[in-house]
């Protein structure tokens, strides 16, 4: 007994101070840059940035911002696209779950989500542009037999002023993301027995689900929905590729000004970035109030006894909507591949006249460098995020810390704030520290976005580890660190690798953090693809976007395959 107690307590005493500090250090690493970055954007928004001659507090940047030609249109399209994309995505997800739960398609959908989520926004957006543009695949398939077009029509199917293409491009990623978080919430609320109770009380499947299951799911997906809203309102790369060009969305306008040769444009840009932050926070608040209003309006319906029908028509419509979303994503990646191997390809031919490896042969040298950077930055950010997340979770368990709702909000903070609002200020600080444009700075900037996803992916499985395993190991004489390394980590191999795959995909998809922290000197596949997307050679753009799409997918696939191979002789750890 005596030696056992010794083995248990001694390492804990040594390790405790370091481990106990990990959550605080993580928060500092994580919130420090955001707070500093916001401050660094705030000062120039009011004219203060001595490095470029701003030495007086003034409202001039705001005047410049508000008197920009087309500013009203910019605001309008920013807000309408942000809200429409979020409402439509959430609507499809909720109605799909309500009408198709319990079907074979519903179960299969879960498996199809991972590859869609691993594909970066920019690659999907470029592929979607290749599909929907006037000279794109859809027009080619319909021409000339249905449309009579012998040359690309002069219509704005992409970069349209109303932002329809932007909304569609956003939905391609937001629908699978919201589906994923809804599936996770459904597992938490034990939806199946609740549904059985509702069905046997006479409720149709759709009405029953909306009345009984959704009210429990809603609070669980609230923060992810806010993150989607914030992202839709402030996205840069997708808006540059698919959004309106002139006037653009506010986020794109601000980034254009920040990249202007005339450094004086940084002042109105900072004001615009702050305005965007205010719009995003105001929108989240408005959404929250809207949730309350909807809930109050629907309360009488909830207990009014209306049973609803079979919902077969809705199930059909939602199956269709989801299938179109999935098919568009797949088609977007395929059309990238098609262009990268295309020889001469005239409008309105549906296929290139010949296929060639010329594009790849010509680009392989240029591709290798950003691909290496993407891999290196992604791997470093992912490994650091994994280490921090695992140590935080271990500290939480060992010291009985109970993270509250505040911790969850803090974790979501980088996803709820517009990236432009703090990345510019952060860059100013990085310049002052002399580390801008270094790989370290880029990795740190990526970490802000990788860490929340990695932590959220690991937290539930970690907290679900059977405590008897650790207790048993301890009673066999293993100290807490040995339990951590020899019991918990191996048992967690699968969730850890899934988190790694997700973390890498998040890093690989980052556009703005790479651009700002890298000071334009560090290029990844994403920055290259987005820069090239404005150009005219679809073959080269297709090649870059395809590699950009496939690299995180390959990493994710490897992450999924590893535990299956490593644990092939361990049925207790088999993939369910």
């Amino acid at each position, binding site marked *: 007994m005596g030696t056992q107690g010794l083995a248990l307590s001694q390492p804990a005493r040594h390790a405790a101070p370091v481990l106990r500090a990990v959550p605080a250090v993580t928060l500092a690493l994580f919130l420090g840059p955001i707070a500093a970055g916001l401050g660094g954007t705030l000062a120039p928004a009011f004219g203060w940035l001595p490095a470029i001659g701003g030495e007086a507090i003034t409202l001039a940047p705001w005047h410049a911002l508000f008197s920009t030609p087309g500013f009203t249109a910019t605001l309008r399209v920013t807000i309408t696209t942000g809200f429409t994309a979020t409402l439509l995505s959430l609507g499809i997800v909720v109605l799909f779950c309500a009408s198709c739960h319990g079907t074979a398609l519903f179960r299969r959908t879960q498996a199809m989500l991972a590859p869609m989520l691993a594909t970066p926004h920019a690659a999907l957006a470029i592929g979607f542009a290749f599909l929907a543009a006037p000279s794109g695949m859809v027009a080619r398939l319909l021409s000339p037999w249905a449309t009579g077009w012998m040359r690309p029509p002069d219509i704005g199917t992409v970069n349209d002023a109303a932002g329809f293409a932007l909304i569609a491009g956003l939905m391609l990623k937001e629908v699978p993301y919201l589906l994923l978080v809804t599936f996770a919430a459904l597992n938490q609320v034990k939806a199946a*027995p*609740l549904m*059985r*109770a*509702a*069905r*046997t*009380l*006479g*409720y*149709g*499947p759709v009405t*029953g689900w909306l*009345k*009984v299951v959704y*009210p*429990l799911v809603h609070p669980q997906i609230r923060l992810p929905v806010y993150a989607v809203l914030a992202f839709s309102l402030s996205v840069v790369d997708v808006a540059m590729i698919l959004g309106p060009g002139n006037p653009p969305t506010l986020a794109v306008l601000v980034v254009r000004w920040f990249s202007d040769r005339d450094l004086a444009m940084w002042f109105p840009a900072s004001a615009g970035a702050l305005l965007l932050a205010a719009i995003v926070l105001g929108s989240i608040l408005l959404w929250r109030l809207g949730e309350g209003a909807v809930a109050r309006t629907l309360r009488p319906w*909830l*207990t*009014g*006894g*209306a*049973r609803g029908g*079979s919902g077969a028509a809705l199930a059909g419509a939602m199956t269709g909507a989801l299938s179109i979303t999935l098919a568009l994503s797949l088609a977007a990646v395929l059309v990238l591949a098609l262009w990268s191997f295309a020889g001469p390809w005239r409008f309105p031919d549906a296929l290139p006249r010949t296929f060639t490896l010329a594009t790849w042969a010509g680009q392989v040298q240029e591709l290798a460098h950003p691909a290496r950077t993407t891999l290196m930055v992604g791997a470093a950010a992912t490994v650091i995020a994994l280490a921090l997340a695992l140590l935080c979770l271990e500290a939480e368990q060992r010291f009985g810390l109970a993270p509250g709702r505040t911790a969850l909000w803090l974790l979501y903070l980088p996803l709820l704030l517009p990236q432009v609002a703090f990345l510019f200020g952060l860059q100013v600080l990085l310049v002052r520290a002399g580390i801008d444009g270094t790989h370290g700075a880029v990795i740190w900037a990526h970490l802000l976005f990788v860490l929340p996803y990695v932590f959220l992916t690991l937290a539930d499985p970690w907290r679900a580890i059977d405590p008897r395993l650790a207790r048993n190991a301890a009673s066999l004489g293993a100290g807490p660190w040995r339990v951590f390394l020899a019991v918990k980590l191996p048992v967690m191999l699968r969730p850890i690798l899934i988190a790694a795959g997700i973390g890498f995909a998040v890093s690989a998809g980052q556009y703005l953090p790479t651009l700002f922290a890298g000071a334009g000197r560090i290029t990844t596949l994403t920055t290259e693809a987005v820069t090239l997307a404005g150009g005219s050679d679809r073959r080269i753009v297709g090649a870059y976007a395809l590699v950009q799409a496939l690299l995180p997918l390959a990493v994710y696939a490897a992450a999924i395959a590893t535990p299956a191979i490593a644990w092939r002789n361990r049925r207790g750890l088999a993939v369910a």
Partner: protein
Amino acid sequence: MRGLSLRGAAVTLGERALVGPLDLTVAPGAVVTLMGPSGSGKSSLLAWICGTLDPAFRAEGQVTVNGADVTALPAHRRRIGILFQDDMLFPHLSVGGNLAFGLPPGLSRGERRARIAAALADAELAGFEGRDPATLSGGQRARIALMRTLLAGPQALLLDEPFGRLDVALRDRMRRFVFERTRQLSLPVLMVTHDPDDAAAASGPVLHLLAGGAVRREIPDEGVPDALPA
């Protein structure tokens, strides 16, 4: 024919026969008890009767309620109520909201309120409308669950080990509470359980599930020698 009838009812999981084939009629107001150990397929039989059987199982046979064949109907149109071991009160609704959920649509506000108040009074929980179900005791929750089921106006009631989660002291009271009301309403009741006391309280025919799915009727004072051990 009044009551709940099963004809040629059989549930299989893969190659394994769980229950049946079984022919059975439960008269209005009567309680038939089906006994068998956990995992023997009793609950699957009930799930099939009320239309919520997991697609992993296969079932055949016919279910009729008051002469109407409901086998092809979806769960929500069968009008067969079921009570589980877990009360499955909806946590986002108040006690009154849970009861209102069971009531049919088309009643006036006043009528709804009156019927809920009457149901609460009947459950000896008068004035509990605004309470959060999470603040109720196990016995109170079980009574609310029964009331919610009865307010939906079922034509037959299934009980899936409904008293298993209650304290032993509460069980007998709850049994009497349930069976008094089903008799009053002339509901045919099919109960599955592994507790012989449940069967005794039901004071109706008792069937025992045998290995291989066969079902044998218990002859009072003799028992069933080859029944699966409960």
